[in-house]
């Protein structure tokens, strides 16, 4: 009975949400969730893994991880054209981890954890060290169940330069119970996925409530893949799409290990099938409140019907304007100073809400915090909470966290001036003229919602609407990432050491050498070499003992 119980508490669900966007793109979001009721933290280690991947289970128990969130993204999410994503992620790689209270040396555990993850995901996560790790004091609260939140156990790092390619997707696919052989993961072919405007793959591990009473917790592993296809550049002229055109594969069957395998198509803009139609048609419709908006979805259940493909036409019409949106850019000229501007837009007509801005700037951009200004609608807007940790050269980056109240229908601008530092010549990358990246700012906010959110956390909700825990009905939590910045640092000419050595040695050789010769060289007269006959004659004379010829 014990065995049967533990097997039942292991659950795998997969779903795909397809949402046609108004800019002519298609947003496809895959979510794979494995739930497992087990305790990684007890003494005798867990050794039988069924649906949960063993590599991640061993990482959790070895490093006493409470929560782990890692994302690899290629491209930037355009909020104004595409709306809000289900799960936001910044360009490059991002990793944030909450450790258990029992960890004594969090920094050592963090260092080892990044190395192990770099091996699992074939990424250069080992470049995460103290120069790009920060410990946020108020952002990134745990998304799972936890006893208390002491921010000493939180670490956050981004690598904006990290490239995502098939070598990251391959180990990610291998973590799924069915791999890429059955179920929705069959559609994940790299040639189509990377030929897109936006690609993001993430892994989220956290403890969640098992049911409404929340008496027991289980570990949840969510693997999500978000991709936005631009159908115009990828060769589709007409405004219609199908699963085969997007992924160049068709679905055959659901993953046999999955308890549910569903596809949701967003048909909110097409209530009476006047603009477009789905084929094959399905009578199943469901409604879900996601990101403050009530949307209607057509549902296809792969476990029940034999499934070929879906095709559809793209909708016309207006889209719900995103309420929170942010931009960031560098102003100034030259290679000495500059100014970082972060601009936040509050598009709500009458409500204001607070946002928490987290900025992590590398040490080689020396921020002048006395020039920090926050203005809304032209007037000064003092943040109610500021946490600033200054950088230490080659050891720590700047950390700036501010809680700013955004007035309704306004633009808030945060500016800070900086100075560029000169690095040591060994610290430059092999291609320093490309520039140096500054990670994205993170803006966390509770945005007021016009539609009541569902605060019951049950299993029947679709996966894409149940990621962020919802405590109150009138607002929903969003995290918005700005663009990363690319800053040029003053770059030396790396051939100069060679030039200097050559020039100096030449000057020394010519100058000192000539002088030494002049001072120490002496001239002697030497007889020319005698002819052969004379040599023989001299030889005979020497034998005879007679004086030699001259």
């Amino acid at each position, binding site marked *: 009975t*014990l*065995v049967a*119980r*533990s097997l039942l508490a292991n659950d795998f669900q997969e779903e795909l949400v397809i949402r046609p966007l108004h800019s002519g793109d298609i947003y496809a979001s895959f979510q794979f969730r494995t739930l497992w*009721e*087990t*305790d990684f933290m*007890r003494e005798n280690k867990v*050794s*039988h893994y069924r649906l949960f991947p063993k590599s991640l289970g061993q990482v959790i128990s070895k490093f006493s991880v409470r929560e782990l969130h890692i994302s690899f993204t290629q491209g930037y999410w355009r909020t104004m054209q595409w709306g809000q994503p289900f799960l936001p992620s910044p360009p490059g790689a991002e990793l944030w981890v909450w450790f258990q209270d029992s960890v004594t040396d969090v920094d050592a555990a963090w260092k*080892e954890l990044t*190395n*192990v993850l*770099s*091996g699992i995901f*074939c*990424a*250069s996560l*080992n*470049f995460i060290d103290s120069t790009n790790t920060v410990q946020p*004091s*108020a952002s990134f*609260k*745990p*998304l*799972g*169940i936890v006893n208390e*939140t002491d921010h000493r156990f939180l670490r956050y790092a981004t690598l904006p330069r990290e*490239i995502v*390619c*098939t*070598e990251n997707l*391959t180990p990610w696919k291998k973590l799924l119970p069915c791999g890429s052989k059955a179920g929705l993961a069959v559609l994940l*072919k*790299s*040639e189509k*996925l*990377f*030929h897109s405007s936006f690609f993001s793959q993430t892994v989220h591990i956290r403890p969640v*409530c098992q049911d409404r*009473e*929340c*008496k027991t*917790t289980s570990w949840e592993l969510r693997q999500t893949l978000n991709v936005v296809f631009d159908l115009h550049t990828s060769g589709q002229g007409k405004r219609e799409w199908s699963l085969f055109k997007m992924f160049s594969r068709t679905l055959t069957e659901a993953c046999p290990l999955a308890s549910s395998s569903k596809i949701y198509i967003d048909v909110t803009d097409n209530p009476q099938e006047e603009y477009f139609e789905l084929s094959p048609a399905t009578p199943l419709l469901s409604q879900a409140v996601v990101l403050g908006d009530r949307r209607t979805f057509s549902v296809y259940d792969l476990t029940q019907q034999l499934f070929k493909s879906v095709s559809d036409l793209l909708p016309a019409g207006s889209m719900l304007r995103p309420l929170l949106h942010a931009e960031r850019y560098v102003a100034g000229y030259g290679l000495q100073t500059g100014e970082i501007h972060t601009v936040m837009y509050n598009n709500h007509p009458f409500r204001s809400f*607070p946002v*928490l801005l987290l900025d992590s700037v590398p040490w080689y951009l020396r921020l002048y915090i006395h020039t920090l200004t926050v203005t809304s609608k032209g007037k000064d807007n003092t943040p*109610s*909470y500021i*946490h600033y940790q200054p950088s230490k050269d080659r050891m720590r980056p700047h950390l700036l966290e501010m*809680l700013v109240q955004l007035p309704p229908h306004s633009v808030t601008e945060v500016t800070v001036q900086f100075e560029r530092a000169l690095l040591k010549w060994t610290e430059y*990358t*092999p*291609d320093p003229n490309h520039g140096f990246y500054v990670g994205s700012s993170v803006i*966390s906010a*509770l945005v007021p919602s016009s539609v009541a959110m569902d605060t019951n*956390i049950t299993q029947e909700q679709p996966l894409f609407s149940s990621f*962020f*825990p919802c*405590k109150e009905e009138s607002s929903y*939590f969003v995290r918005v990432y700005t663009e990363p910045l690319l800053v040029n640092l003053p770059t030396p000419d790396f051939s100069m050491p060679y030039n200097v050595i050559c020039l100096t040695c030449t000057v020394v050789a010519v100058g000192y050498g000539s002088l030494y010769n002049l001072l120490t060289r002496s001239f002697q007269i030497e007889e020319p070499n005698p002819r052969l006959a004379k040599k023989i004659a001299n030889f005979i004379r020497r034998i005879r003992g007679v004086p030699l010829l001259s």
Partner: protein
Amino acid sequence: MLAAIIMLIFICFCVHFQNTAGQFFSSGHTNNWAVLVCTSRFWFNYRHVANTLSVYRSVKRLGIPDSHIVLMLADDMACNHRNPKPATVFSHRNMELNVYGDDVEVDYRGYEVTVENFLRVLTGRLPPSTPRSKRLLSDDRSNILIYLTGHGGNGFLKFQDSEEISNVELADAFEQMWQKRRYNELLFIIDTCQGASMYERFYSPNIMALASSQVGEDSLSHQPDLAIGVHLMDRYTFYLLEFLEDIHPASKSNMNDLFKVCPKSQCVSTPGHRTDLFLRDPGSVLITDFFGSVRKVEITMEQPYLLKVQEKTYSYVDQLPVSEIIHQKPKQKDWHPPDGFILGLWTLILLVFFKTYGIKHLKHIF
């Protein structure tokens, strides 16, 4: 009589069995490893990445698993923004063969490919937190294939346009490997300009080396693809790939066939090889001794059982608890000195000054 015949047949069978078993272990190695390195960065060095990936592909096809391959690519060509077909790296014109494929694991990529990391991988002196996939965990019964490609010169190989490894360093690294018993036999292949200079200094036993060109010669690239805009492969590796495509895991081709790959008519440069440090005769060394794999598989059918525990109520945390955040830090007030303090201080200073130097200085101040 019958017993004698049966005995004879039995002995013949034993001898035959012994022969095949002996043949199986004649090379003396029990596992295979491969270290494949591309040392060039930037889009116009696409062909070096394609070279390395085509050797990776052949080696995987012939049986060496990803866990025994250390693949180092100094730049990303497949998902480079200049690549008109993302997630692909082609080796043949007209996009015939995608050597990147769908199942690739790159262990060292981008800035991680440095001379220091390469030498650390070879000698095994890596920091303790390095994951297994980044280590060369070979023992004294391992046959290792080492393939290097990039830009090189007489006695050096350039890493990422910023540092070099010299042939002396490489020879010393191999000697360290020999002294630590990290290889049984080593096959070293290099495809760079003046590649033969890199194996001139080897002095450790059991090393066989191949290079694409002699000292004073350049290795040339094969063919450009006009759609992608760069040269796709180098000549030596192109013909090496063609040769390896004909090899299958049970093939009996030996090293003498490998030495004949890419003669001067095809390669324009003269490929060279060095076998004086190798103990066995190259004619008896199979290609699959280095490019293929010996693997032992053990199957277990055990299944351990689990346990369970506990009773408590939990809840989620507030994502943005505004009041908590604001009151987290006590409000910092600037310290000002008490009123009149500065005035009193200056009065005191002036009084002491005039006391010491006399009142006559007062008119100079006021």
